[in-house]
């Protein structure tokens, strides 16, 4: 019972990070700040959701698979963010200044 509550809290926290990341993606002014918002959702939000789900997982193998998905997203997300930012910099997109 306790694990279910902990799991629910973690899932909701993860969803909040996703919401924040999405709002940032829609509202932030330029590519670089949007990437900043996105990585929070990808890394932390997904991490919380994976921990929350693995508490409910039926076996260690299932929890392990969820954890591997998180690692893969961390790797791909970090690299792709770098590539997008690099492409934007090469194309001459300027940093946003107030």
């Amino acid at each position, binding site marked *: 019972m306790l694990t279910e509550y902990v799991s629910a809290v973690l899932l909701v926290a993860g969803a909040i990070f996703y919401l924040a990341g999405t709002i940032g993606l829609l509202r932030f002014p330029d590519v670089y700040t949007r990437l900043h918002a996105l990585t929070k959702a990808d890394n932390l939000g997904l991490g919380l959701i994976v921990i929350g789900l693995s508490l409910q997982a039926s076996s260690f193998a299932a929890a392990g698979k969820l954890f591997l998905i998180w690692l*893969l997203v961390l*790797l*791909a997300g970090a*690299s792709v963010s*770098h*590539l997008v930012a*690099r492409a934007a910099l090469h194309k001459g997109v300027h940093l946003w200044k107030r």
Partner: protein
Amino acid sequence: MEALALLQDVFDILLGFGLLWLAWLALFSLDLFRSIVSFISFGLLMAIIWVRLDAPDVALAEAAIGAGLTGALFLAAFAKLQPASVNGKGSSINPQKQSSRKQLLRWLPALIMLWIASGLTIAILALPPHATGLTSEVTSNLTASGVSNPVTAVLLNFRGYDTLLEIVVLLLALLAVWSIGSSVPSIESEPGPVLDTLSRLLVPILIMVSAYLLWVGAHAPGGAFQAGAVLGAAGVLLVLSGWKLYPGLEGFPLRLVLTAGSITFVVIAILTMLVSGTFMQFPPAQASILILILEMVATLSIGVTLAALFIGSPPTDIKKL
């Protein structure tokens, strides 16, 4: 429980409208690049909907092919079109001027679409709310099929013809692409250290995932097409990070891998005809191993064909012929 069902309905409605909205953006947004990105998100949303409709096999195929590979194909074509459309800018401005007549002409197709949509809606709503379809036939013959995932059983055993022809269609598409042979140079990329490291880390993982999907397809969602698509994605990643096929492999070995799927399929089909008298009828005792062999070879062929379709131009030694 009531509240949960209501929440699920709300989620479904949001997904449905989100899908329609993304389709609208993909088709009518003014910026073509934005259209393509919308189309990729459309594919991802579609994958979620497949899960909602209890079709995890389709969801895997959609996420890997519909969103992933098709999106990569569109982006590559968009990049290759760029210099051409800058040159032809003068001619592409005039449609703006003669738009008044075109605007009028838009009403006719719009009305026809509304008519078609309402006709289809009436037809769908007139269908009975429950229908068993072929579920009972599939489940009652599942034990004889050699696998326990019903979708894999349909694809590789009950409707093996479809899958055979599909692999041939893939091969034909590649042959057509090669014979059209666009002279537009393929995208030159300077990968940089991050993309290089990423591809070195990800390609082995993708190959492993592909093998896992292939193996698990016998009893859970997965199978040759999903595995092949993941393998194709690994190939696309290699191409993007500047990797080139070893020249010695471009001729006969490449063509052998590309056609291996179709050849194995036909050979097994003829062998089963000689043994059991019917084309592609697997004997239940050997069905499992036959399906595994077919799927392994088909995965390899599908993956390499998809990567070759992404590259677009034929390998150099074929060009010389």
